[in-house]
């Protein structure tokens, strides 16, 4: 991979061989070392194919792992990012990046997506990173640190590798309380980052390389950098390292003893259960986990913290969410793959195995009986091999068929109940959430992509969608739960997956968390997405939680927080203000035709916002539209009148 800038003609290019020869003369040994992951794989358990000693010694890396760059310091940052395969970046308005823009312009193969608010730009970078399995990169104003924090927090909670960089942070400004500056510029971001640092003129690419290392971990997450100390247009000569982002996260392999222990428990258990979490997709383990589950017909659950489509929800072994689990009546073994049991836990006393690629998470929230530090895909494959070693094929087949009959009979019944419940509200207006889910499933492509940011009613809709496996992908809801994430994230997802239908699912309350600004970028870059606003004029989740236990305010019909219908926002007009299409849906019979129109518009390249009137759920207040009144206009009238 060549550097982004041609060296000046009076300076001959430096080849790697010359560089090594020159540095060898100093007594230093430099060169490309095998990556840590490669070393880890060479120490794999005995079940892995053995590499003959002679062959291993001869298998030095054949390609060059780095090259030399000469050009502007800003260009060195770009060169290092491009060497990691980064070709999409996110930016919010600021000055002070001219050398960087010049480097981008000279490279000619980097797309910068302008977003009008730092928060949405970071969300878009996160959505892009999740869907592309690449690195999300943002650059913007140092004054925008505050704006970016909400979705920086979400990316940190979701453990998504991002580089979030800001202008400013000059040490010369410390103590001055100067323009757009404060001391220790990145301190506000520290809680939500893997690392913070200042870019330095002579170490630009080195710091970026290190930042990528921190961002991938494990644990993965955002890194924040400031540019203030770097003289961007100064000429530098620096090494640029090739980085394979697929291998950027260190991959551990479990000890054979731990795998054997887990395998023995698994074959002994009468009613085992798998719980899947985000690491399954992060490690590319979804297909292997499906195969393992099917091998012994082990039911699979997930939790609300499952960011991705880790298991096909239309599979007979999919049991729904762990919190609602009632089968088997007595689970005798739970294995969590990439699920840290932060929010939902097995029944007390259930033997539990926790497999995670982050050793820091193992048993941290919930004490487990066996903790296995491993890349999830490796662990699943090793477990599968271990089971093959413990059971005959015939025995495996008998266990599989007996358990499948039992589990699928139950899931069939549960699905019947879901259907009965859905049909009970099928034609109601305002629409039921189930009906919206039903129509979306009917209308969308089988492999569409869903980016939900919905409250506790989400499951009513999501349960109607077939997600995972060969079905739809899902990214979200952010575990951070800070509203104001989903629309920006959907843009990032659509940028990463331009050939798929992308659907952002929003509540009216969530959309009102400043998300309309993201529509500007959706229009600018012609992202033909569908934005669905589930509009019940209410912060429904909050009202339900505040009212569930009754109390004086509930009895009086007073909800200080919930009602949103005054003013009654017309979201279609917001969409039209950004040159997008908008349509209201008020009745169940209107929905299917509206969806067809929306899909036609999307095929024509234009995003659509559907404002769907949906029902409220939860405790009914005697005065559902009450809110605490205050009118500045009335005060003015009285004052003027006086």
């Amino acid at each position, binding site marked *: 991979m060549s550097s982004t800038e041609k060296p000046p003609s009076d300076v001959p290019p430096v080849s790697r061989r010359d560089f090594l020869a020159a540095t060898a003369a100093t007594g230093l040994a430099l060169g490309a070392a095998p990556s840590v992951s490669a070393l880890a794989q060479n120490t794999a358990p005995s079940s892995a194919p053995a590499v003959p000693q002679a062959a291993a010694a001869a298998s030095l890396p054949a390609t060059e792992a780095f090259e030399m760059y000469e050009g502007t310091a800003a260009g060195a940052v770009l060169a290092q990012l491009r060497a990691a395969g980064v070709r999409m970046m996110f930016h919010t308005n600021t000055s002070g990046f001219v050398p960087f823009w010049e480097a981008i312009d000279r490279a000619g193969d980097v797309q910068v997506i302008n977003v009008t608010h730092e928060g949405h730009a970071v969300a878009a970078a996160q959505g892009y990173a999740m869907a592309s399995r690449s690195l999300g990169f943002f650059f913007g104003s140092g004054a925008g640190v505050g704006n970016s924090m909400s979705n920086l927090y979400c990316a940190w909670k979701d453990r998504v590798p991002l580089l979030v960089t800001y202008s400013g942070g000059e040490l010369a400004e410390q103590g001055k309380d100067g323009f757009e500056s404060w001391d220790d510029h990145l301190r506000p971001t520290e809680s939500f980052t893997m690392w913070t640092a200042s870019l330095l003129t002579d170490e630009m690419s080195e710091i970026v390389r290190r930042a990528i290392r921190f961002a991938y971990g494990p644990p993965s997450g955002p890194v924040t950098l400031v540019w203030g100390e770097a003289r961007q247009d100064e000429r530098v000569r620096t090494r640029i390292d090739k980085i394979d982002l697929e291998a950027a996260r260190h991959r551990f392999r479990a000890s054979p003893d731990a795998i054997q222990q887990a395998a023995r428990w698994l074959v002994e258990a009468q009613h085992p259960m798998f719980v899947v979490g985000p690491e399954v997709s992060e490690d590319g383990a979804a297909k292997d986990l499906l195969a393992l589950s099917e091998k012994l017909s082990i039911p699979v659950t997930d939790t609300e913290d499952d960011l991705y489509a880790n298991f096909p929800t239309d599979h007979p072994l999919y*049991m*729904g*969410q762990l*919190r*609602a*689990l*009632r*089968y088997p*009546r007595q689970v005798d073994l739970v294995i969590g793959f990439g699920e840290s049991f932060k929010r939902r836990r097995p029944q007390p006393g259930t033997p539990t195995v926790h497999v995670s690629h982050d050793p820091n998470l193992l048993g941290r929230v919930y004490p487990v009986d066996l903790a296995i530090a491993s890349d999830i895909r490796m662990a699943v494959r090793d477990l599968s091999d271990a089971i093959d070693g413990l059971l005959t094929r015939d025995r495996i087949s008998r266990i599989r068929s007996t358990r499948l009959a039992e589990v699928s009979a139950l899931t069939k*019944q*549960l699905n*019947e*109940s*879901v259907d*009965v*419940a*859905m049909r*009970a*509200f099928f034609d109601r207006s305002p629409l*039921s*959430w*189930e009906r919206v889910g039903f129509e979306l499933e009917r209308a969308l492509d089988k492999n569409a992509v869903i980016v939900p940011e919905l409250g*506790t*009613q989400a*499951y*009513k809709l999501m*349960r109607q969608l077939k997600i995972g496996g060969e079905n739809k992908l899902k990214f979200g809801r952010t575990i951070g739960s800070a509203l104001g994430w989903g629309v920006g994230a959907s843009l990032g997802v659509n940028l990463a997956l331009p050939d798929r239908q992308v659907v952002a699912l929003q509540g009216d309350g969530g959309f009102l968390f400043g998300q309309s600004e993201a529509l500007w970028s959706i229009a600018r870059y012609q992202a033909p997405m569908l934005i669905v606003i589930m509009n019940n004029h209410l912060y429904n989740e909050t009202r339900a939680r505040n009212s*569930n*236990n*009754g*109390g004086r305010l*509930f009895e009086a019909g007073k909800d200080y927080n919930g009602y949103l219908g005054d003013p009654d926002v017309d979201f279609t007009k917001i969409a039209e203000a950004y040159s997008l299409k908008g349509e209201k849906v008020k009745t169940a019979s209107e929905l299917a035709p509206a969806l067809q129109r929306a899909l036609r518009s999307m095929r024509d390249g234009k995003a659509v916002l559907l404002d769907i009137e949906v029902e409220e*759920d939860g*405790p009914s207040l005697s005065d559902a539209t009450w809110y605490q009144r205050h009118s500045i206009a009335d005060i003015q009238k009285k004052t003027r009148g006086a």
Partner: protein
Amino acid sequence: MKPSRQLRTILPLTLWIVVVWMAARIDGSGTAAPVARGAQSSQQSQIEKGRVAVTQVCVGCHGNGGGIMRMLEVREKSAEEWRETVYRMIGRGAQVLPDEIEPLTAYLASSTRRGRPQAAAATTTQGQPGTEATAILARRCQRCHDLETATTKPAAEEWPAVIDRMIRLGATVTGTEQQTLIAYLAGLKK
């Protein structure tokens, strides 16, 4: 031949006696009664099935009965409304089997604030309707317990611990009510 005067008197009297006798049997002492008792027993078994389903289906999200009890306390719903709630909970992920929908509805309807038996009608084994303690029993305890059985089981000195345990499981009993109940239940003859 015209019936005799005696026959004209006896026949209507006999007819009247038969009618009264049949009415008495329909009222619960004869062949019609088992049908009514059968229906009541079937309803009770539905409610019992629903109560069991609550412990299996609902506690995962609503927690150990406490949350459920509090919600039953504040919700005033008809059976139809409770059925709708069951459907909504299924939509939210509650793992209800098809044949549990009606029993759940029956149980919730029988336990809800609106469906709660009148406090004044509660009686104890000593037959003392209308006391403050019996009103508390009806309001706080009867939705889960058959009082006739529940109030006779523990010994007098066990009541404080029993009520503490019920509060931990979600019974919404105030401190004053707790003292009233303990004093009353401890004094019951077994």
